[in-house]
């Protein structure tokens, strides 16, 4: 595979991002909606975003481990489909907060809850409209050195430390000095 996207840094043109593209700290996560460690990390990332505010750019790429997480692929597609309707992050949050209910009926209910066109969203999920993009995320992660989920990159460097708030904040704020 030839890398067309930066492997370890967010690409504001392509990725789902939160925060300013000019932020001095860039945090990229490769994650899986059905991975329990990713759900734990999701809460930590929320707190990090609160604390770092405008200093942080956060981006999320899909890394579904579909064999052990049978719903991960559809969940990722639901998030991408929500993104196409302008609401990726709300779906992203709902998915991580409701990890035990990922049947297609549940995904449709989340779409309705977010006032999205649930019929369209589920049609796109069933057709795998975003499968190629998710695979592109996945492949870039493999070449970036992702070795499990979640894997974080801070300003392009893989973060191998503990994923608790204190340790992650320390690593992130070290980028400011």
């Amino acid at each position, binding site marked *: 595979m030839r890398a067309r996207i930066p492997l370890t840094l967010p690409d504001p043109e392509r990725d789902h991002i939160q925060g300013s593209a000019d932020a001095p700290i860039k945090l990229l996560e490769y994650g899986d909606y059905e*991975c329990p460690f990713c759900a734990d990390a999701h809460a930590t990332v929320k707190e990090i975003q609160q604390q770092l505010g405008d200093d942080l750019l956060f981006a999320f790429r899909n890394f579904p481990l579909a*064999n052990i997480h049978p719903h991960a692929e559809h969940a990722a597609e639901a998030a991408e489909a929500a993104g196409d309707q302008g609401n990726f992050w709300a779906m992203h949050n709902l998915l991580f907060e409701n990890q035990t209910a990922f049947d297609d009926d549940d995904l449709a209910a989340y779409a309705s809850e977010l006032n999205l066109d649930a019929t369209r969203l589920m049609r796109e999920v069933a057709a795998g409209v975003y499968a190629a993009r998710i695979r592109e995320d996945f492949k870039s992660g*493999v*070449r*970036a050195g992702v*070795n*499990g*989920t979640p894997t974080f990159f801070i300003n392009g460097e893989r973060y191998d430390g503990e994923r608790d708030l204190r340790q992650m904040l320390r690593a992130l704020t070290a980028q400011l000095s």
Partner: protein
Amino acid sequence: MSTAKTNNQTVSNGHRASLGPGVQAPDFTLRCTPDQSVSLSELRGRPVILAFYPADWSPVCGDQMTLYNEILDEFQEFEAELIGISVDGAWCHAAFAKQNKLHFPLLADFEPKGAVAHAYGVYDQKNGTSERALFVIDPAGIIHWSYVSPVGVNPGANGILSALEDLKARSETIAAPK
């Protein structure tokens, strides 16, 4: 038990030095299921990825074999065969593979314990398991690339894919001048 240890150079951590590029990959025959075996020599003609790992049943989401299972399509683009090896027995492998829906063989380096890991220089005496070590073997059975990962660090797949790309480029340049 193997007495090979005394015949070979050791490195400071007490492990034998692992085999590196250019060396003929030692052949072996190991159980892949309770009633079937695989020999490395049967796989000549295409690249082979040997992934030694310490044990079945490590934490799932960060597990090396689980990760590789998701990347089989990429490995298959290079017509490469992936093989996992640990000192776990064939029944243990069978349960582990079923639980994680693994679609590639896990070989049992079980009796004599760790003999193949010894042959490749990646047996960890202290823990009684193989190290986390990767070998990409070319279609002629020569080691093309190898890597021993630090204890507890899943090496991911990038090194394997780079080695496979390199092998492919090499075979294309050999084929091209004709």
